[in-house]
């Protein structure tokens, strides 16, 4: 049974491309050992040797979480229309296209319906590869769509963030997605549907300062980066170096910002356990 059961909103499967492009072996950044890629995938992208975490695409993340064959991609077929005609070192339009080609995604998020240990839910997962997982009009719209779907089908909503914040290239429109998502989030509470926010590496700036921080329960994956301002900006402002664990998951837990820090291997169980209460 395929993991992704595609339906109406069929999206191109980018699995093949990845497989093609990449070697059979990858090197672990933590222990520098070569790991057989298949083995790594089977192991939630956690190094079987040292336990180090490999970066997860949205699709890979979904695979680590949902019951096999249960996930239906409901990501809306929309993409950025470059409302600002934004050009920096590259035209935004081009950048989006490039990112789409590289990732096989329309934008930095996948939203769908799935089950985690038989608990049905709407699951939205951000992908950091796509312009830093940044939230522009499309990501905002997809999150709101996901929430609305959850409300309609009376399902819990789970968001896995991996985002540097609001997308600069859509200017004020991106900033407004903070309000748009926060406003939609309220619908869940009104219907007594839980919203579980999972913060991974990184959950910062405009995303941490809006939807990601509004979970009824907030979970940080070990190894996450959680904060509003960037480390360098803060160091410049206060004129001193920050400790290495600054804005880490542990830091967030110690400062009452998240409910728990969870290993990648336990995330699926953790979510199933929480959903069970609602």
């Amino acid at each position, binding site marked *: 049974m395929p993991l992704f059961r595609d339906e109406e909103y069929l999206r191109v499967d980018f699995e093949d491309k990845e497989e093609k492009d990449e070697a059979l072996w990858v090197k672990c950044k933590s222990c520098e050992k070569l790991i057989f890629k298949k083995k790594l995938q089977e192991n939630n992208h956690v190094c079987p040797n040292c336990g180090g975490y490999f970066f997860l695409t949205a699709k890979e993340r979904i695979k680590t979480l949902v019951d096999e064959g249960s996930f239906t991609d409901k990501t809306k077929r929309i993409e950025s229309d470059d*409302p600002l005609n934004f050009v920096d070192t590259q035209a935004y339009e081009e950048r989006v296209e490039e990112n789409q080609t590289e990732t096989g995604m329309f934008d930095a998020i996948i939203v769908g319906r799935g089950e985690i240990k038989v608990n049905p839910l709407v699951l939205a997962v951000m992908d950091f590869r796509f312009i830093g997982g940044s939230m522009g009009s499309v990501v905002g*719209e997809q999150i709101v769509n996901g929430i609305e779907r959850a409300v309609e089908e009376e399902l819990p909503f789970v968001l896995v963030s991996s985002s540097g914040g609001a997308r600069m290239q859509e200017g004020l429109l991106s900033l*407004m997605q903070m*309000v748009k998502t926060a406003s939609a989030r309220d619908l869940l509470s009104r219907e007594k549907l839980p919203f579980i926010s999972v913060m991974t590496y990184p959950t910062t700036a405009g995303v941490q*300062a809006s939807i990601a921080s509004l979970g009824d329960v907030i979970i940080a994956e070990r190894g996450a980066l959680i904060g509003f301002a960037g480390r360098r900006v803060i160091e410049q402002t*206060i004129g001193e170096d920050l400790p290495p664990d600054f804005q880490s998951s542990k830091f967030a837990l110690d400062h009452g910002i998240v409910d728990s820090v969870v290993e990648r291997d336990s995330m699926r169980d953790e979510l199933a356990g929480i959903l069970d209460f609602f």
Partner: protein
Amino acid sequence: MSEEKTLQELREQIEQLEALNSRNGLDLSREIDNLTEKLAEREKDTKEKLEEWDKVNLARHPDRPGSEEYLDYLMEDFYPLHGDRLIGDDGALIGGLAKYNGETVMVIAQNKGGEVEQSQQSNFGMLRSEGYRKAQRLMKLAETFQFPVLTLIDTPGAYPGKEAEERNIGGMIAKSISEMVSLEVPTVAAVIGEGGSGGAVAIGAADRVVMLENSIYSVISPEGCAAILWEDRDKADEAARALKLTAGHAQDLGIIDEIIPEGGSGAHEDFETTADNLDHSLSNHLEELENYEEDQLLAKRRKKYRSIGSFKKVMKKEQS
């Protein structure tokens, strides 16, 4: 400077070509037309860029009137409330009960502070966690008594400090947005100077949002944007243009409801005209909003924010 040089070069080139033209049966008109067009475009670009950057400078002008001045001028009475009841009182956020057109409103305003000392006390308008918490407290208080909420936005952004992060400033901004967007009273936000990213929108999730003509509202500071995208903070002017952070653009994008003209060459020159215009606008918006029932108001607000965004349908496109 180098931009001006390029323009000068182009102008000289055109002059030289024109001088050569029609002499000895030479027809350079096409080349001249091309260059002239190029020059015009370039000039327009430069003007726009300067315009954007000028506005950034105007919005940040040291003499630009701040929240305190507007409150002094607009409110018949103002009773400041202090503190977040937990951590402290953030000088970068002033707020309290005010009489406006004879009615009580709750004012929540970012305060850069004028004098050097004041500016330090108010942390140059950069709020800390307790500032956002205070804003939330005042919003809830307003809701209890059904007072409309009026916010004045003027901040370079939330304070990027160690303690602020330890105190979950991101979460506090999120909470402010969330409280404000669900508030069961009419809300009007006015950007009077700098509307700096998340730190600004935290008190900007209003029914109506207006901007003073020379104020800016942006997802990131031009300097920050330049540093990240151009890897060069000095490209801030270019970034400012790209970000389209002026009131005109904000209106074009459908994000604000009105641009409020400033007097003279800006509010710092003609405060009274500016404040009168702001007064007029705020009064109108509040009056309009008071026609709605609570649930109508909320429904309208939700609909408004539901629809903000710009995207297109994906056409069948080839993907690997």
